[in-house]
């Protein structure tokens, strides 16, 4: 019998199109895998009926000889940050528990139009704020990976798209949506040995995605290989008049444009990313990545991104500032939780609702954001951070004079254990040191598996490209994938 859990997006789509199996068979098999993997806590809500209905519609279209979409018959996981009509959408927060949207996000609607089906809503860090999926109101997501030391320490699947990464690595679904504000697609992909791409800011509509930091938020696909990411990104992307920052550009044919011959491409290696005390495994993986890209025909050049060290502090002013503004909408009046202590007035209701509804990390970020935007501090913090952000973007612009792509590690370490970094917010923030600069500059960036650590855990290589050049990023990702020989997968202990 065909093991559908081992098939990716392309294999399922092609098999359904050729009639080798029915979309409904795939949906049934993956529904069962999802139902049997509760120990990972990857899903907040499971929607097996929705997956079956979408699959049946694809089977009916095929039987009727109708053209099939780019994702026809492929069941996916939907990060619970995308509003789905009629299905609870929480952003993993208590304040939105029970919220059932009356509308569909543009990106999820695009995927359903392309023939994909929904297995369920995936857990995440609360409001996408976190790098380990430990801030969810609905509990930690557990990575399917374990260290090879014989211990059973529960590891972080990365964040904020930790339900997505865990579910894909555990082969519960071939692909899932992610969103990336400061690394939330790439870092979880790196931690779990899968691939994920954050496209250029504006490629995917933000409409219907629960907002965190609007100048940074960007949706993208996560999957087990580069081709699958290309297919799914094509289905997700596209101009949307409902998002004022949506790019009014045609969606390139990224899948058919895949080409791992990198002859003539110049790959920049940013010297500022080689931090003092860099993890040995990470340094070795990076060197391997350089060798693989050379083997694919690329020229490797040394580059400088001088403001790199300021990216994280700038991010931790800008993102909380935007979050404090975006999350002002949770007032206990129009939707979501309401906490109205006896005899209290409107102001007390706001304060009680938000104290009860937001988790500790969300409250912390709202308060930082409120502070840096407050009278007397705005210029010193927020304006200064936006100026530094302009310099970070300029660093990249200047680098493109001597290279076409940048290769760096995705994260400074392999996955850490749950609970290891929760006591110190700063040490958690530092995990995004390599991911945040591309977010601040709005550039496309991808993580692909680059090897294993000494502990047997996956490590990710990051490719950053010029604005709108997702194709070059995907091609370099493919060149790495073809050479890395990464076939490791998590043992099925759950």
């Amino acid at each position, binding site marked *: 019998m065909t093991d559908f859990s081992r098939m990716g997006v392309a294999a399922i789509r092609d098999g359904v199109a050729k009639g080798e199996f029915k979309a409904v068979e795939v949906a049934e098999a993956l529904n069962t895998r999802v139902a049997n993997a509760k120990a990972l806590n990857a899903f907040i809500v499971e929607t097996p009926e929705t997956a079956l209905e979408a699959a049946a519609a694809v089977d009916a279209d095929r039987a009727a000889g109708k053209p099939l979409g780019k994702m026809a018959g492929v069941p996916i996981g939907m990060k619970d940050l995308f509003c789905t009509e009629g299905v609870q959408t929480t952003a993993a927060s208590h304040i939105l528990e029970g919220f059932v949207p009356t509308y569909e996000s543009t990106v999820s609607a695009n995927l359903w139009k392309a023939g994909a089906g929904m297995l369920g809503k995936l857990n995440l860090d609360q409001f996408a704020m976190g790098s380990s999926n430990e801030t969810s109101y609905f509990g930690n997501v557990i990575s399917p990976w374990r260290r090879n030391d014989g211990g059973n320490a529960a590891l972080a699947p990365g964040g904020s798209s930790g339900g997505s990464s865990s579910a894909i690595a555990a082969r519960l679904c071939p692909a899932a949506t992610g969103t990336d504000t400061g690394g939330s697609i790439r870092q979880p992909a790196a931690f779990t040995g899968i691939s994920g791409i954050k496209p250029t800011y504006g490629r995917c509509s933000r409409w219907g995605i629960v907002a965190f930091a609007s100048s940074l938020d960007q949706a993208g696909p996560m999957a087990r290989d580069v081709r699958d990411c290309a297919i799914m990104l094509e289905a997700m992307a596209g101009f949307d008049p409902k998002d004022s920052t949506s790019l009014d550009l045609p969606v390139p044919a990224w899948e058919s444009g895949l080409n791992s011959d990198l002859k003539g491409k110049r790959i920049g290696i940013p010297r500022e990313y080689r931090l003092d005390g860099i993890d040995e495994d990470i340094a070795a993986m990076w060197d391997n990545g350089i060798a693989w890209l050379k083997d694919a025909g690329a020229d490797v050049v040394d580059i400088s991104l001088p403001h790199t060290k300021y990216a994280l502090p700038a991010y931790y002013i800008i993102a909380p500032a935007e979050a404090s503004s975006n999350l002002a909408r949770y007032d206990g009046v129009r939707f979501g939780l309401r906490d109205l202590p006896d005899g209290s007035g409107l102001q007390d209701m706001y304060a009680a609702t938000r104290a009860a509804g937001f988790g500790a990390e969300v409250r912390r970020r709202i308060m930082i954001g409120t502070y840096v935007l407050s009278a007397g501090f705005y210029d010193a913090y927020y304006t200064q951070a936006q*100026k530094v952000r302009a*310099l970070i973007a300029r660093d990249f612009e200047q680098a493109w004079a001597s290279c076409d792509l940048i290769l760096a590690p995705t994260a400074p370490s392999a996955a850490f254990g749950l609970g290891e970094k929760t006591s110190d917010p700063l040490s958690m923030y530092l995990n995004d040191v390599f991911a945040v600069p591309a977010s601040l500059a709005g550039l496309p960036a991808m993580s692909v598996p680059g090897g294993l650590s000494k502990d047997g855990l996956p490590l990710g290589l990051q490719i950053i490209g010029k604005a709108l050049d997702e194709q070059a990023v995907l091609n370099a990702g493919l060149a790495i994938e073809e050479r890395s020989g990464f076939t490791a997968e998590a043992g099925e202990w759950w």
Partner: protein
Amino acid sequence: MSVDKDTVNKIARLSRIAISDAEADKMVGELNGILAWVEQLGEVDVTGVEPMTAVIPNKLRLRDDVVTDGDVREKVLANAPAREGSFFGVPKVIE
């Protein structure tokens, strides 16, 4: 710059988040840790640099001045925690 407990309470009020005395004490240390760390941005020479307003050059579109939605009252009210008829219910504001 660093914050004291009074400032933390003021930020919490501005944020419309109720915090207890113990939480305020804890928050003083956490916020000061983060603020001390972001302070390093002050060392960057930003002479002549305009603050970023858009990461990818894009012009704001104007759409046609026509009604494109409406007549969705039930949808708008569907998730209200305390609906009253066709209104959002709130505690009494004016005495």
